[in-house]
């Protein structure tokens, strides 16, 4: 039975050797040599230091293409023309499934034809040397962004390759991303990833870790995202990670979004150990986008405005071509510039909005209910508590595809467009909080002259792409 305990050094070495034999490039990883390499990097490429010392929200896009030269060109463009402060390298889907052979075929085809035959950068196939070429070419810190349930080899290679930030976690890269990976399995695999990041940290190379806050990206109630982020932060801290960035995805109601980011910051600092430096990241709207670049820019701008008020440490931007899928580099840079323009105009205005304090209080009470449920389910152990709470449905994520979660709760917007819970299923929550949600949703039903039903949920899922926040009839 796995528990929230640090992996011993000999066990770390054993797993490390085992996973590095999964693909030939694993043989090039040498921990001592990698430490020296990281020490040789200039300060402006040290992810944790750059992020933690920033005095306003830093901007980061998503971007990944198969070929190394193209990836360098793409990131240079986003840095130069988009003025991105932090850069990403998004990993392709085959690598996320540990299908390195298929990724290799895709990469070779991309090299032959010049087409983007993979939807991201196959970092395992590029190996330590390929990663370092990228790190050296770009004059800014770069994070690995992916969606990999078993990211052990990816972590071993990209850490040795000079990356100092790594997205994901055992819940956030399982529950929203895959059907059949058990939670116990992904927790065990991510304990290794965090332990490896912790081993670098112990040697003075602080690897930043970023749980994926938006989860399923569709009307996720803030308290659920925050509770899961805190759990993943706790698991990482146990393994020795000392720089943790917790995330939250925009729901579109400004009051709720600002309140959620404030609650995330306060609760993370409260729940995580003092030796951890906590930062926050705000994701611009992760749901369906309008099929129109002008309107998409509106969605992005509202995200920029929210960021200017809440002042997270980092913002992950969207592009006006979000509706169509992977954007051109020009559109990707445009999303960065739009966001920067709005943030820089609004950030010094000290905008306060009524209701933020009350909403933050509600979110914090909800989050504590969920954290207490996890603690109780695990008899004090956060690993067992998480597994058992998901199993019983006391902890759940709306629209979760994974067999490890019930996926039985349903969210809907209230009359102000704040995300509430319409179907609680077995989610652990105090009755007075449930009553608040019920009353708010009832108010919306009255306004719209219809019963509360799943129809509201469906309408809300489509609302923003249809041009409004609330899916009114």
């Amino acid at each position, binding site marked *: 039975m796995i528990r929230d305990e640090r992996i011993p050094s000999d066990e770390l070495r054993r797993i490390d050797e085992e996973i590095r034999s999964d693909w030939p490039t694993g043989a090039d990883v040498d921990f001592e040599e990698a430490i020296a390499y990281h020490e040789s990097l200039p300060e402006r490429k040290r992810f944790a230091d750059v992020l933690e010392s920033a005095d306003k929200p830093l901007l980061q896009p998503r971007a990944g293409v198969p070929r190394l030269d193209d990836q360098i060109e793409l990131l240079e463009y986003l840095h130069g023309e988009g003025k991105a402060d932090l850069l990403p390298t998004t990993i392709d889907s085959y690598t996320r*499934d540990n299908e390195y052979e298929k990724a290799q075929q895709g990469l070779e085809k991309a090299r032959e034809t010049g087409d983007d035959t993979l939807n991201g950068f196959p970092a395992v196939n590029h190996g330590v040397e390929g990663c370092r070429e990228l790190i050296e070419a770009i004059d800014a810190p770069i994070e690995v962004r992916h969606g990999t349930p078993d990211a052990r080899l990816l972590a071993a290679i990209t850490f040795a390759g000079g990356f100092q930030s790594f997205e994901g976690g055992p819940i956030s890269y399982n529950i*929203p*991303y*895959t*059907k*059949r990976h058990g939670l116990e399995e992904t927790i065990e695999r991510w304990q290794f990833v965090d332990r490896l990041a912790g081993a670098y940290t112990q040697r003075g190379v602080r690897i930043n870790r970023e749980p994926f806050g938006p989860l*399923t990206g*569709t009307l996720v109630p803030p308290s659920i995202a925050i509770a899961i982020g805190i759990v993943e932060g706790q698991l990482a801290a146990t393994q020795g990670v000392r720089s943790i960035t917790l995330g939250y995805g925009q729901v579109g109601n400004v009051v709720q979004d600002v309140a959620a980011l404030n609650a995330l910051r306060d609760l993370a600092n409260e729940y995580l150990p003092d030796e951890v430096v906590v930062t926050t990241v705000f994701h611009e709207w992760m749901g369906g986008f309008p099929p129109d670049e002008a309107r998409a820019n509106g969605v992005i701008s509202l995200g920029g405005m929210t960021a200017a008020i809440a002042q997270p440490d980092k913002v992950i931007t969207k592009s006006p071509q979000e509706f*169509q*899928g992977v954007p051109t580099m020009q559109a990707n840079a445009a999303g960065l510039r739009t966001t920067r323009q709005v943030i820089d105009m609004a950030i010094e205005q000290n905008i306060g909005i009524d209701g933020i304090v009350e909403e933050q209080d509600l979110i914090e009470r909800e989050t504590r209910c969920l954290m207490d449920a996890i603690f109780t389910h695990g008899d004090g152990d956060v690993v067992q508590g998480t597994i058992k709470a998901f199993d019983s449905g006391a902890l759940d994520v709306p*629209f*979760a*595809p994974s*067999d490890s979660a019930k*996926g039985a709760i*349903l969210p809907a917007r209230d009359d102000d467009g704040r995300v509430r819970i319409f179907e609680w299923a077995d989610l652990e929550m105090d009755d007075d909080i449930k009553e608040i949600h019920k009353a708010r949703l009832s108010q919306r039903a009255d306004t719209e002259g*219809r*019963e509360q*039903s*799943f*129809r509201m*949920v*469906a*309408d809300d*899922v489509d609302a923003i792409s249809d041009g409004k926040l609330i899916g009114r*009839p």
Partner: protein
Amino acid sequence: MVLNTMSQTVVLGVIGSDAHVVGITILEQAFSAAGFDVVNLGVQTSQEEFAEAAVAHDAGAVLVSSLYGHAEQDCQGFHQVLEEAGVDAATYIGGNLAVGQDDFEETRATFEALGFDRVFDSETDPEEAIAALRDDLGLTTTDTERATISS
């Protein structure tokens, strides 16, 4: 088309490696509220899993969802698998069925040729699919309706 079976059981799932779950969650709710018995297989469902579930539950309809653009590849041979398993059900497919193809009629023709009875785009409301299924199964509204759907 009126099928011999009067089963009101609908088997629902996302085919292939696709993990997009929001659409089928809404369809599950909508078909349940409309009175159908829904078996939701969830995301990342293989052709064989669809066939097994359709047999096990004597399904009147098999509803396939796909949003990641690989539907054509994932559905090759699907109807043969259903036939070999002895499935006699209406088959629908809906979602984002092709990457970067804006002519939906062409997409519809592609999937009808693969054997689907009806093909829907991603803008289709659940009510439209429910009405179509009632037609295809020869059911009246009162046969199935347990709850009022207002929109």
